[in-house]
């Protein structure tokens, strides 16, 4: 499994957007060019140690040359430990697929909803929005892209084919991915590594938009302003961010303009805490939530459950109501969602 990465595209690039647009690194055009060339050649670059693994360069690259995947591969090659070793190793064990989970796979029908590894979301999808859609979740369908934050591309590669095969065993022809990361795995990662995905995948936003459009009569416009936390893995499918705007329009929600949204989105900070960079995590979280609070939004809206966990309390204390995108849609169709993980 080799990454479809063409060094020549980097050599001939005249933007170096991967580094000059980065939310965390501060490179001018000249120094970005130097480091980018090192990375393209597979040489050591200080970027490998400075990278905060926010995925953004995957979106910034004008040539779809997968700069982020390339960086992660080189981080691993040069033995860079982003997180404390026991934390990274424990995480690897925590989500490894188990024989018993694979053995328990049975057909669920043509369409299913993947909740990835978030069992706490079960209550949040008990809704007419997801009626008739069987739920699959667990380590056997876990995309493993979280290890991009831990310089561990080899384990993702090692488990990728089996993950695709496991979903196929469910007999699914169309898989709705609740989490951006799963969708990114099947649509960005799999393509970047030449893996065939024998079923169709649908991003949650696309699914929600279609459902709401079909049931437009049942929508009660919410007429509220929301601040949206764009998560890292949405960078793997930037086109879906525009679908979210369409959803918001349908349900009468204004996505406030703020500094850290869309292309300028910043991390939720959870990964930095895992790395032991708590002060940096706090700084980023504060910047993000302060920005949300001053935007005049009433809700802080998340799609990634991890972002929700990392920022819900802080945003609530700042006077915003934290909520998942799908729960916001439920409000618009007259349902009263509960907090994730609280039954």
């Amino acid at each position, binding site marked *: 499994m080799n990454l479809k990465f063409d060094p020549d595209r980097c050599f001939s690039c005249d933007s170096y957007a991967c580094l000059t647009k980065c939310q965390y690194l501060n490179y001018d055009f000249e120094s970005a060019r130097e480091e980018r060339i090192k990375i393209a050649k597979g040489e050591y670059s200080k970027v490998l140690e400075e990278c905060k693994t926010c995925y953004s360069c995957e979106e910034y690259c004008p040539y779809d040359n997968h700069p982020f995947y390339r960086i992660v591969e080189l981080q691993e090659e040069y033995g860079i430990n982003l997180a404390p070793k026991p934390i990274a190793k424990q995480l690897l064990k925590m989500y490894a697929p188990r024989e018993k989970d694979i053995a328990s796979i049975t057909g669920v029908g043509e369409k299913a909803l993947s909740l990835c590894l978030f069992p706490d979301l079960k209550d949040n999808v008990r809704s007419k929005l997801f009626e008739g859609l069987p739920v699959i979740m667990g380590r056997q369908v876990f995309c493993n892209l979280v290890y991009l934050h831990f310089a561990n591309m080899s384990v993702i590669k090692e488990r990728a084919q089996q993950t695709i095969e496991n979903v196929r065993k469910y007999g699914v022809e169309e898989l709705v991915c609740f989490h951006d990361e799963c969708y990114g795995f099947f649509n960005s990662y799999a393509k970047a590594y030449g893996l065939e995905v024998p079923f169709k995948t649908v991003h949650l936003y696309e699914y929600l938009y279609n459902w709401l459009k079909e049931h437009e009569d049942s929508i009660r416009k919410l007429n509220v302003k929301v601040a949206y936390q764009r998560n890292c893995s949405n960078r793997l499918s930037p086109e879906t961010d525009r679908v979210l705007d369409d959803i918001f329009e349908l349900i009468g929600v204004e996505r406030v303009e703020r500094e850290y949204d869309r292309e300028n989105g910043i991390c939720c900070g959870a990964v930095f805490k895992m790395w*032991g960079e708590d002060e940096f995590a706090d700084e980023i979280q504060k910047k993000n939530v302060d920005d949300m609070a001053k935007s005049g939004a009433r809700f802080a809206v998340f799609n990634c459950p991890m972002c929700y966990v990392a920022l819900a309390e802080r945003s609530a204390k700042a006077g915003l109501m934290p909520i998942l995108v799908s729960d916001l849609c439920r409000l618009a169709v007259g349902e009263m969602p509960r907090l994730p*993980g609280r039954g």
Partner: protein
Amino acid sequence: MVYEELKAIVGEEYVSKEPEELHIYSSDPGTMPATEPDYVVMPKTTEEVQKIVVVANKHKIPIVPMGGALALSGLVRPLKGGIVMDMKRMDSILEVNEKARYAVIEAGVTEGMLKAYLERNYPNLRLSTPDAPPIATVTANALIHGSGRLSQMYGFHSEMVTGMEVVLPTGEICRVGSCSISPYWFSRSPLPDLAGLFIGWFGRTGIVTKLGIKLFPKHRYRDVMIFVTENPSYVSDVIWRVAHTEMAEDITVWAQPRPEWAEGFQHTTIYITADSEEELKFKERIIRNALRDYIKQKEGGFLYLTPGMKATFLQEPMSQLVRFADVRKGGGFEYVGAILPVDLFDKAYRKGLEIVEKLGVDWAFSVRIIGRSHCMMFAYAYPFNRADDEDVEKARKALHETNLAVLEMGGIPWKAEEPAQQLILERMDEGAKILMKRVMDLLDPHGIMNPGNWEVK
């Protein structure tokens, strides 16, 4: 005859010689073989306890005082028959002195009762609870040198005892501590410390009927942090550093093979409390700074805890422990609680692994730091299926080998089962043994109090 006399003291409802009831009192969930009492009696007052002791002396039959019977090492099995005195009816909380922060309770008051009572009536006070089921009694736990949630800061629960009322083996009632001369049960000092005559003796020297126990401030905020390492030789230093900050209310360490992600790692769990969020954050930051070297060198880091995980670790007591105790099914569970210096963590950990690998038993290691790392209670826990003799025997072997290893390392098995008591006595200073024997002979001339335990030969 004895039955009739006991009946006359407590009433027919509270005495039994029925085999099915005697059977219940013959063992605990540990590996020690069952030994049945002849009678079970449940007194309600100190005076009834006194009268029962007089009867036992008259007939020269043993008495075994019993709290929750949760020591797991068979300490309240009547090794020589006689009367098991179940203290659960003496369950009154007699006094809480809010300003002096102590409670006076009867011997049958459970951890759960006192905790709930304080939560309802004195929300600013708490007691140090052990990680035992809430039906464990406060008095028995203190008398066996138990430890718990506040032991990192304030030591063993026995050190939290402020006074006691005791029925001596010869029937006299006496009070020790400040309550011997004052209406207040505030302290054992500055008098001669007679409480030591009744703590750690497993009921050999008398029956404690009332206890004064220290209470502590309860703070509004509570949080938990878990520091993960993969090298046991780091752990004693991690503990030392955290204890040095004086910011941690409780420090425990756990290592176990299940769930599979936990195997091979040591988890130092640090509990912090505060009265404001700022204070809590401040304490967290100080603790993180204390461990910064490990994080920088990538040798250790804090586990990311979701709200659900935090809620699990913040439970008091933790319900997951009960689940582990029954992992083999069949309700068997026992551990060697080794009291050891903290710097022996690495050795103790490796020795434990050697034993479990050799014997192929299920296991979990769980450590509580006592008194700012003055020492630790290193629990080598072995669950087993009581319905499977082979499984019981394997656990018994593991416990025995662990007891030997602990003594070899210079530690002492806590609340040791009777065979382990003998291992301790074999190694004990001769003078100390003579003194122990003299104390027991002097206080209990007929040898009626829980005989078979601490038997100095």
